[in-house]
């Protein structure tokens, strides 16, 4: 699993590298671009995702102790928190839609001399967050299967590999967000 996560580091890392290059070229546009995002929505999503990582860790702990009911309970909370995160994300995207801030479709919501550079920031924003949200959706799906298997009594204290594996995946997706949050929401917060 860690081998797969290593490739995932580079999957997201490639886009982050592009982000860094253009941020160095257009620092001021990155400041303006991140101001288009709601800081408090970003904070709320971060807290929700961190809480889901806690319940995921507790689900793995329950698996180590062989408590199937506790596994199911913690996984259901984790899934619920994941869905809350995705709902906040969808609400945020809806805001971009309403304010015409979607490059390539309708970016008339931001009119300034540096609008093309800011549009580039927003393109990175959409690529990074959509890729992250896709990982979240896959994670919620796999968690549902694992919760169902736990409910059926598939796991025990000595045989619960799948719970640990999906836990690693979920925590990794959390870590990606821990970097996306400052890069996409906090760049212009001091203005």
């Amino acid at each position, binding site marked *: 699993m*860690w*081998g797969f*996560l*290593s*490739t*995932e*580091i*580079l999957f997201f*890392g*490639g886009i982050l*590298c592009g982000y*860094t*290059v253009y941020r*160095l*070229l*257009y*620092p*001021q*546009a990155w400041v303006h671009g991140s101001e288009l995002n709601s*800081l408090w929505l970003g*904070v709320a999503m*971060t*807290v929700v995702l*961190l*809480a889901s*990582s*806690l319940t*995921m*860790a*507790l689900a793995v*702990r329950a698996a*180590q*102790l062989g408590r199937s009911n506790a596994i199911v309970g913690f996984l259901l909370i984790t899934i619920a928190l994941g869905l809350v995160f995705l709902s906040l994300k969808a609400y945020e995207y809806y805001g971009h839609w309403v304010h015409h801030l979607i490059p390539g479709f309708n970016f008339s919501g931001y009119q300034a*001399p*540096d*609008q*093309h*550079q800011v549009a580039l920031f927003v393109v990175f924003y959409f690529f990074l967050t959509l890729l992250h949200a896709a990982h979240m959706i896959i994670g919620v799906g796999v968690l549902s299967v694992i919760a169902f298997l736990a409910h059926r009594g598939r796991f025990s204290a000595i045989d619960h590999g799948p719970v*640990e594996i999906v*836990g*690693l995946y979920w*925590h*990794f997706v*959390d*870590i990606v967000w*821990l*970097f996306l*949050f*400052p*890069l996409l929401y*906090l*760049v212009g*917060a*001091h*203005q």
Partner: protein
Amino acid sequence: MTTEVRSVRFYVSVFLALLVLTALTTSVAEVDLGALNSPVAMLIAATKAALVALFFMHLRWSGYRIRFAAIAGLLWLSLMFAFVLGDIATRHIPQQPSGWSNLTGGQASSNPATPLN
């Protein structure tokens, strides 16, 4: 993988530390530290990532093979950043691609290299 089970209190403590760091990075971001803005934000993000990886993902108690796989990704990532940024730092790149002057109504067409910021 370790067979020893951590306490619920331990995991909740890690979570609380992550919340404190989130509050810290958000409030520090309101302050203009000049060139230090990004390094501070990235340092806090890396600390949070380390907390998750070491304790939630149990890397702290993992064997060397697991650690090797985890570090391999970071190694290649740092190589990619090092070569790409080294290239960017050592060549001249105009602030605005010349084709963009037409898109902005020709304001910048007299001098395509003028920074728009």
